[in-house]
């Protein structure tokens, strides 16, 4: 580099930085741009995750200066705790039923909405609106709909058909299905949009080829749509399952975990232990247990489903 050679010599202070320094400055610039994101993610995501693990090994009520180290005692207690086991059962029930119903339903509607009919964008909007509605506001309205008196809208409609008023959110057997219904109503839009994207990425050539071979609608779906949709289906199954295990807002707004803990979910239990009874260590242990469960289930899904996914070349 001529400039560098000419500039160096006795009595001359080099003004042009060396290649190494320049590279370092470029990297620093990059890090500077990354810094805000790194700080936010580090402070609000990474640090709490790591810190929570340490808390889970203590017995701590947040303001007590005494915080004894108890090792894995919190985890053992969680696995033996009746209430936590109930929460586990409830959450598993919720996850499998809600995902098991929501995915086929979303697929069904997505296929219907994939036509080029007039006003189709209105129909799609109608399905998507629940997803963008504030869950708290929607829950308030659903709470009113589910009113156990004859004044609740649902009971009013049932009365017209001659069915006696139901207790809905207050009935130990109906409460969780009621919550599942609201959850499906809320998430259907998002699932439909994802399926639509997947459907529209399937090349028309496949359909035309199949139709030339004389395939009917069902065979088109079974042999063209379904296999080529499999990456999307796989994706939705995984994220829906993960999200379902974290359900909290709906039981919080609709039932308070009741009646008799029938809608107590794992995250609700964590919230209760951490922020109502101030047992930070125990709550953190439950949180890490949930993490382990979701991790296991996701790995299981991968093992079972991944090889059935056809990626379009």
């Amino acid at each position, binding site marked *: 580099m001529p400039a560098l050679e000419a500039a160096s010599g006795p009595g001359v202070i080099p003004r042009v930085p060396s290649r190494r320094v320049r590279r370092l400055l470029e990297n620093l610039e990059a890090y500077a741009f990354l810094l805000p994101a790194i700080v936010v993610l580090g402070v609000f995501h990474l640090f709490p995750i790591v810190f929570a693990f340490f808390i889970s090994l203590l017995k701590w*009520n*947040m*303001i*007590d*200066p005494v915080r004894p180290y108890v090792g894995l005692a919190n985890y053992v207690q969680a696995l033996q705790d009746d209430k936590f086991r109930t929460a586990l059962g409830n959450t598993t029930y919720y996850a499998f039923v809600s995902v098991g119903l929501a995915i086929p339903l979303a697929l069904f509607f997505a296929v219907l909405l994939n036509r080029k009919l007039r006003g189709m964008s209105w129909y799609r909007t109608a399905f998507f609106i629940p997803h963008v509605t504030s869950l708290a506001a929607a829950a308030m309205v659903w709470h009113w709909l589910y009113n*156990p008196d004859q004044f609740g809208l649902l009971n009013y409609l049932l009365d017209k058909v001659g069915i006696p008023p139901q207790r809905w959110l*207050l009935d*130990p057997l109906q409460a969780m299905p009621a919550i599942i219904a609201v959850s499906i109503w809320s998430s259907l839009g998002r699932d439909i949009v994802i399926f639509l994207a997947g459907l529209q990425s399937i090349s028309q050539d496949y359909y035309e080829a199949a139709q030339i071979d004389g395939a009917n609608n069902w065979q088109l779906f079974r042999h063209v749509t379904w296999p080529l949709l499999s990456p999307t289906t796989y994706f939705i199954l995984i994220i829906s399952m993960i999200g379902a295990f974290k359900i909290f807002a709906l039981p919080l707004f609709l039932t308070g975990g*009741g*009646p*008799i*803990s029938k809608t107590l979910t794992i995250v609700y239990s964590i919230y209760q232990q951490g*922020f*109502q*009874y*101030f047992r930070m260590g125990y709550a953190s242990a439950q949180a890490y247990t949930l993490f382990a469960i979701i991790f296991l289930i996701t790995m299981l899904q991968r093992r079972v489903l991944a090889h059935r996914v056809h990626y379009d070349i």
Partner: protein
Amino acid sequence: MQVGRRGFLRIAAAVLLLTASLILPAGAGGPVTITFWHGMSGVLNPAIDELTNDFNKLNPGIVVNAQYQGTYGTLNQKLVAAVAAGSPPTITQLFPNWADQLIQAKAIVPMENFIKGPDGLSAEELSDIFPILRQESTFNGVMWTMPFNKSLYILFYNEDLFKQNNLKPPATWDDLLNVSKALTKEEGGRTTRYGFVVRPTTDYFLLMLITNGGDFLKPGGKEVAFNSPAGVEGLQFLIDLVQKQKVAYVLNAFADADFAAGKVAMYFVTNPGLAFARAAVAGRFEIGIAPIPYKKSRATLLSGTDVAIMAKAAPEQQAAAWKYIKFVTGTTATTRWFMKTFYMPVRRSARDSTLARVYLQQNPEHRAGLDSLAVARTAPNIAEWQEIRDIIQEAVEEAVLGKKTAKQALDDAAVKANKLLSQRK
């Protein structure tokens, strides 16, 4: 940028001035500012603001900021978080069992320090505060908090309905049953009005427990006593009202709406519920108030909150806080608080004052509540009681829903509660 010697001195001077103005205590001239966290919502909020403004006017050297923090549950969470973060308010409203946790964490200052201090209360002034209220504020023989807005459970009844049917408000459990039978009305196969309502809550059960001679904890405080035969009988009585005699129904909500709509003739509630009931009834009928019906012993459950001074506050802030607390629990203020919010006056002199007596003459329905103060009982003021309440709540729900027998539900709850108590330090 070249900063010469003069420039440097100028910058240093500016920084010093800025720092000094920030660090110098406000006490050096300005008023002492303190914060008061509370959970008074609805109509209670302006009442507390009024009290606070009056105090601020009377004490120009002190500024009290009363800050609403949300429901009691939210207030508790914010309080604990603030203590953990090291920035709590000066004064906080709190339930006695929250105080237990804060005492263990050394987060509050014993009220006794101020009561016995130079600006404190004389022995007469102290004993003027109802003994049962002082008892709930006392932990291990030391008075840590000050009763502020206390209430107790009473029975609301539809006075017009009672007069129409020539009935008197029930005094005993048997009366409750008979009156409920008389007032339950059926039309076309459906019950359009019930005599009583059973809210499957801890308090409904505890009321039956204590009016049947039962107790919360066994002597010694290491085991619970709510699953005694008295407790089982009480819970069974409530269940029978619904299932066997069919003169009551189960409601998982506040009862004032149904009461106002004429769906139910009586219900248990605490004094401040009168404001809500009156708003719902909107003058359609007179609301009568009676003591809780008893079987073995007249009793009612004390409820409501105290106030406490946080330890992190500076000495002059704590002194100012004590002045404020002395004011709002003084005879005049507590009388006005009672007349405005229907919470109990905390002092005997307030109850017997001319102002109160005139008010009671015009509003005699409040006498039942005031008289019940003599038989009020306090639940244990231990930190574990919050969770034990939830355990009892679930047991009551299970029994009322018929999932377990009353005895089974209470015994299972007792096992869980005793386990909690055994972990108590």
